[in-house]
């Protein structure tokens, strides 16, 4: 066996993810934590970052880089009560950059939290019944679930599984409470953790749940995916899929994006469903690559073992067999903007939040608007995997009041006005916070879209729900590999153009052009759209057409 990666040693030596985090917090001459602790911080829901735009200036001043922490909440299925929204609003204002960032995994990230502000931040969240346990690191991350209750009568039943899986796969250590909240440590012993043991997983692991016919959660990008099977408005069970993941590394041919493979069906029996998920995790835990972190996601393990062997291993551990997968059909992959009524007569409003950034200014006071709505206390908040927010569970009698607030701040107009391309687009954070970024994404995509829109207009495609995504590197955080049009940063201002992904997220795209600058991007798209408009078949999406025309 080749040598284990350094992170493995750090995990094992960490005494239940404690490491020297307490000491790191006391090193008040630096805004960073000790080197090994930067790894452990992730398991507590934080990434150490620095403002890359300011490195040079600070070095000249003999100041260290401007370190701060990104904190990510654990919100299974992306759900917040109005009280929790209010708490989060205040924490964001007092301790972070102020921007509430909705992520592509239905949770929230706050950026720019200085080391000295971490404890107060965590303590405020804890008081609001929130935590950031295991939202980064080599563990099961935030569990995603189709977010709009208006989608299906079984939504609520399915949604419960998000929390159950999250609880089941939460590390057993009390370290989070000890370090950040100040809970007393009981005894010297490190807690037993039958799932994670002392090595945790080889790498991050994502679990998602989808309620067809909407694939808004992009289910096939998850390491483990549950697809609800509904017959006669009843949840009869889930198809279990595994092996999704979009990350790859430039120049490393052993890495690749992969969509999850459906393994089989599990009937609607809570114990069995949880067991199947649990053992899918343990197989990855035991067989995953622990020496090369670039090859350690479940998708590589499943390809190494073979799908059948992986399934057998799960079945052996479960003590039951997976039934043959049931048929299912997705018909779309986007959020249902505006008002939707569910089978119980409750209302849900999906608002468009560009790049998931909730802040005031930039044309609309989103943050104040949502705060006012939270204060009114008449709805819950749900995040979508497309980084939008749904005001949910609104009683018919309260709908008008919410609508008034939405109009007061212009959020309805803002949502209606945004073009289809913009509404379906995703960009990762990239510069100036992501250390791996090679090119801009979130800060640049809105401008690029404004330049693509006239081209769409010219080809009468402005209302097409084309899925376009951009990432600052091939890691795929913004899910560009399964977009109809994907941009992957290669250097500052340069992007590879990928096309041929389908609209529903069931086929990956393929690299079509390398290292284009903006002008070349616009020229290329103009050409592609022109051909598409001339030659497409009826109802053929841009993704399907480009696959047939240029990729096959």
């Amino acid at each position: 066996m080749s040598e284990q990666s350094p992170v493995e040693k750090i995990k094992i030596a960490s005494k239940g993810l404690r490491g020297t985090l307490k000491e790191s917090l006391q090193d008040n001459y630096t805004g960073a934590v000790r080197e090994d602790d930067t790894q452990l911080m992730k398991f507590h829901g934080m990434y150490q970052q620095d403002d890359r735009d300011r490195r040079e200036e600070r070095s000249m001043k003999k100041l260290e880089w401007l370190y701060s922490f990104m904190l990510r909440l654990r919100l299974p299925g992306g759900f917040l009560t109005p009280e929790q929204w209010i708490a989060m609003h205040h924490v964001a204002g007092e301790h972070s950059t102020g921007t509430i960032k909705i992520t592509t995994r239905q949770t929230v990230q706050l950026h720019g939290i200085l080391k000295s502000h971490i404890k107060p931040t965590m303590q405020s969240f804890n008081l609001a019944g929130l935590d950031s346990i295991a939202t980064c690191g080599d563990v099961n991350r935030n569990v995603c679930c189709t977010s709009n209750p208006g989608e299906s009568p079984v939504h609520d039943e399915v949604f419960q599984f998000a929390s159950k899986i999250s609880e089941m796969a939460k590390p057993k250590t009390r370290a989070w409470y000890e370090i950040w909240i100040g809970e007393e440590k009981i005894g010297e012993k490190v807690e037993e953790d039958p799932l994670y043991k002392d090595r945790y997983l080889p790498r991050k692991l994502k679990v998602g749940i989808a309620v067809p016919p909407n694939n808004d959660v992009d289910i096939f990008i998850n390491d483990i995916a549950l697809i609800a099977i509904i017959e006669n408005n009843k949840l009869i069970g889930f198809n279990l899929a595994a092996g999704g993941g979009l990350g790859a590394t430039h120049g490393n041919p052993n890495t690749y994006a992969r969509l999850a493979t459906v393994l089989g069906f599990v009937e609607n029996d809570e114990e069995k469903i949880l067991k199947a998920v649990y053992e899918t995790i343990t197989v990855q835990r035991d067989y995953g690559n622990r020496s090369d972190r670039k090859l350690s996601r479940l998708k590589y393990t499943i390809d190494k073992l073979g799908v059948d062997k992986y399934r057998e291993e799960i079945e052996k551990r479960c003590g039951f067999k997976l039934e043959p997968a049931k048929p299912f059909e997705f018909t779309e992959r986007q959020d249902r903007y505006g008002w939707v009524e569910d089978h119980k007569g409750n209302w849900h409003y999906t608002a468009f939040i560009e790049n998931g950034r909730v802040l005031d200014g930039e044309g609309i006071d989103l943050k104040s608007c949502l705060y006012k709505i939270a204060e009114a206390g008449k709805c819950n908040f749900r995040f979508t995997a497309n980084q939008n927010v749904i005001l949910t569970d609104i009683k018919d009698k309260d709908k008008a009041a919410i609508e008034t607030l939405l109009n007061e701040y212009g959020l309805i107009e803002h949502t209606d006005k945004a073009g289809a391309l913009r509404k379906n687009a995703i960009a990762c954070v990239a510069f100036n916070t992501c250390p791996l970024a090679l090119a801009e994404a979130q800060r640049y995509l809105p401008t690029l879209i404004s330049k693509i829109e006239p081209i769409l207009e010219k080809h009468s495609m402005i209302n097409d729900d084309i899925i376009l995504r951009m990432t600052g590197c091939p890691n795929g955080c913004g899910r560009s590999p399964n977009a109809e049009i994907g941009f992957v940063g290669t250097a500052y201002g340069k992007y590879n153009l990928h096309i041929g992904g389908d609209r529903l997220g069931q086929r990956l795209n393929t690299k079509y052009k390398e290292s284009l600058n903006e002008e070349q991007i616009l020229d290329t798209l103009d050409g592609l759209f022109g051909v598409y408009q001339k030659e497409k078949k009826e109802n053929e999406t841009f993704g399907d057409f480009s696959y047939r025309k240029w990729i096959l």
Partner: protein
Amino acid sequence: MQEIITLTGIDPELEIQTSKVTSSVRELLQKHLNILYPLKSTIKQYATIITGHEIAEQTRLSLPDLLKQFPVKDAKMFEEVIKILTAQAPRLYSVSSAPGSHGVNEIHITVSKDEFYVEDEKRTGVSSEYFSTKPVGTEFEFFIQKQKHFRLPTEDKDVIMIGPGTGIAPFRSFIAERDAQAASGRNWLFFGEQHFVTDFLYQTELQDYLQTGALANLDVAFSRDQKEKVYVQHRMKEKGAELYEWLQNGAYMYISGKREPTSKDVEKMLVDIFKEHGNKSEEEAEKYLHQLVEEGRWEKDVY
């Protein structure tokens, strides 16, 4: 200077002899004389020259302001005023480099821009402002004033340095020198400023010293980063036991920086620390501090 010439109508090229130098009015106002903050005694003399105006006892104004509020009759009268102005006093700066570390051809100083308000108007100190506006490569005239007392002990002794703000200057020099000597004694620095993110002077250098062991301890306080103000003396109190132990071990302790209020507060805190960790009465604690002074182990360079 231009303002003064306009206000008084004096010929800038006129040669005048003052107590120290003979030079043109332009040169005198620009280089030699204290026109921005004349002494109280100067203002008193000014009042006798201009006659006809009462100038209140405690008035301190810059010369242009003075000329505006209490004008001179003519250029001739202003010549008299020039003769009573005192010379621009030298500004002293602690050397923050060390020959052992930075070479014998370099002298570093650490200057903070002196900003203050005169009747709600923001002003800046003459010399610190002057430095901040000059481009790299500007030549200055300066002299070196020798320090008799504020000096490092032998290399085997431990050193405790308390240097908030620009008080860090001499200690940057100390630490660099001790590092160059590979001194066996340990070094401990207390530093304080307002904000961690922007005001941590020499942060990366100090971190490197901590890494290499040239600094044994580095304790910092940033007063404005949290609701309650935290200063160096609070960090000293937190580390009181260790600090007392170092002193018992023969450590030399230094403070540099602004006299008010820090050095007073630090001394008060030291007495508290001696009481708590040395089991001393107030009187004994003060005596202990006094004894440190006698032994040359408590040195101050405050301004």
